[in-house]
């Protein structure tokens, strides 16, 4: 008989730069109040930022663990400098599971159970099988993947756990160049950490005033917040068990509570959408990637009948 795994919530790594104490207090409250099963900590976007959170890492980790949350530490997404390679290798010294954001972490963590974050290119089951052979036990699929691919991948490799990027601005690109620093008149090497002035990203609009993207240091994010709601029962029906919430500068405890109810089937989609809009107003929602459509769009038609069901 098939064993049914209950749906789990993961709080992804905070992708923005917050001041150390604000970072600590955010996670303290997550530890005490948020109904999430997993929490991913660590700096993913820019190696220059790591010292902001470092003094608080241990107490935050302990507080989350005492609250029963399973903690993972994320690796850096773009590794080019020797000190970034070294930082990636040193993840080996941490207790617990590491979430890989760049493939350089894979050999560094050989023999250790690892997970793979949404910034690694996992587009098919063959890639999943390869990662499984390297000790990877769980994968958060790339936000760009359409529903048919998600179903195909989840169905084909039963021993792997999968997560989907259910809530948050989508990390769309990363560069060696820091557009955020440049827009504020600085260079990357002397950036003065101006990205900390925008705890939810710096909006990018078109010349005609359309909201479009958001800058987060060297990372470019969507302006819209990817918000999967009505799609969740279909994803659950196809065997997806992990749902990732990516921290935005809003009440993430409330977001987690709403998602817990969506996963448990105790909150209707339209009510959930209104509740999420109240918690994270002013930012439009999107779900186009999952619908194999324009990523920025919010599609209200049902998902296509998926294969393999």
């Amino acid at each position, binding site marked *: 008989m098939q064993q049914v795994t209950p749906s789990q919530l993961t709080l992804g790594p905070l992708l923005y730069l917050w001041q150390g104490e604000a970072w600590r207090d955010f996670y303290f409250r997550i530890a005490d109040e948020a109904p999430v099963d997993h929490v991913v900590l660590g700096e993913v976007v820019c190696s220059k930022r790591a010292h902001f959170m470092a003094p608080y890492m241990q107490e935050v980790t302990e507080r989350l663990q005492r609250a029963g949350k399973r903690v993972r530490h994320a690796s850096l997404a773009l590794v080019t400098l020797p000190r970034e390679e070294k930082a990636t290798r040193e993840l080996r010294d941490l207790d617990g599971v590491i979430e890989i954001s760049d493939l350089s972490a894979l050999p560094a963590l050989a023999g250790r159970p690892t997970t793979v974050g949404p910034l690694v290119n996992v587009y098919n089951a063959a890639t999943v099988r390869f990662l499984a052979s390297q000790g990877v036990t769980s994968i958060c699929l790339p936000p760009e993947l359409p529903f048919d691919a998600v179903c195909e991948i989840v169905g084909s490799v039963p021993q792997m756990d999968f997560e989907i990027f259910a809530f948050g601005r989508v990390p769309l690109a990363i560069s060696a160049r820091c557009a955020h620093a440049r*827009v504020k008149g600085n260079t990357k090497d002397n950036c003065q950490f101006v990205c900390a002035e925008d705890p939810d990203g710096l909006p990018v609009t078109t010349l005609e005033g359309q909201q479009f993207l958001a800058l987060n240091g060297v990372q470019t994010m969507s302006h819209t917040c990817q918000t999967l709601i009505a799609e969740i029962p279909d994803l659950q029906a196809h065997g997806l068990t992990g749902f990732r919430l990516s921290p935005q500068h809003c009440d993430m405890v409330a977001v987690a509570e709403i998602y817990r109810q969506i996963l448990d089937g105790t909150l209707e989609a339209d009510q959930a959408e209104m509740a999420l809009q109240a918690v994270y107003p002013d930012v439009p929602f999107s779900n186009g990637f999952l619908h194999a459509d324009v990523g920025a769009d919010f599609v209200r038609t049902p998902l296509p009948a998926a294969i393999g069901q």
Partner: protein
Amino acid sequence: MELICPAGTPTAFRDAIEAGADAVYCGFRNETNARNFPGLNFSRDELAEAITFAKSKSVDTLVAINTFMHAGNEALWYKAVDDAVDLGATALILADLGLLAYAAKKHPGQRLHLSVQASASNADTINFMVDTFGIKRAVLPRVLTISEVAAITRKVRCETEVFVFGGLCVMAEGRCSLSSYATGKSPNMQGVCSPASHVRYRRDGKALVSELGAFTINRFAEGESAGYPTLCKGRFAAGEQSGYIFEDPVSLDALVHLDALAAAGVSALKIEGRQRGRAYIAEVVRTIQTTLGASPAQRAGHIGNLSALSEGQRTTSGAYEKRWR
């Protein structure tokens, strides 16, 4: 250093060889390659003919199968690999881990190159690919300075190849969903970026506005030359700034760094532009080969001859110089 030239069509392939290419790279006519543009690329028969011609001239043929396999449609990518091997490709240029695993297992003798789309930006990743899949060369992403290129090349157990001329990705290659965010079509999945099918130009008074999908990418005043709306090279507003916030409409020209790249131990120099016309390719190849063959003292005279061929007539060394960041 070997010069690797792009070919989008069989005629461009021949012209690149006649102009002096050491190797030519190309792809099949479908979404298995990252330049999946209408009217471009090779059928199986065309590739067979091209490879035969290249062999007769002792030129290598590299076949790019460098998009990511669609789940459920992997057979298309596996067939591309099998066909390229059967036809005698010198090397396959791959990015997808699942496809690398397939190629390494099914065709153990076949030379494999790691595509720039694999985004291997450090020695640890590249050496892992050498140990795991036996790759013989890695194409380095356009996010590295010359000194970083040199440091990686020293540490890796395979050859390195770098881009020296043509289009410039501002974002780390293979890790960019900007195009699909605006159009639903991406480099990783469909092999396209900012596709022409989603481009529209419209007049607004005397200005010309370029759009990609539902988004305005640029606005040109009367008399200003209007470039193609590649998303990361558009004009936008952020904070107090308005303009080219990611990158100007420039292309890459790293010819001033040829000596430094040679000293760094780089094995091959790559020209971007499988979507370019045959005349362009031939001209670029000829000029770069002349520059490579010139003495360092003469070289300066040749550099700059290519600028007229560059997008918007403006070029940059991109990430090779640290101040670009």
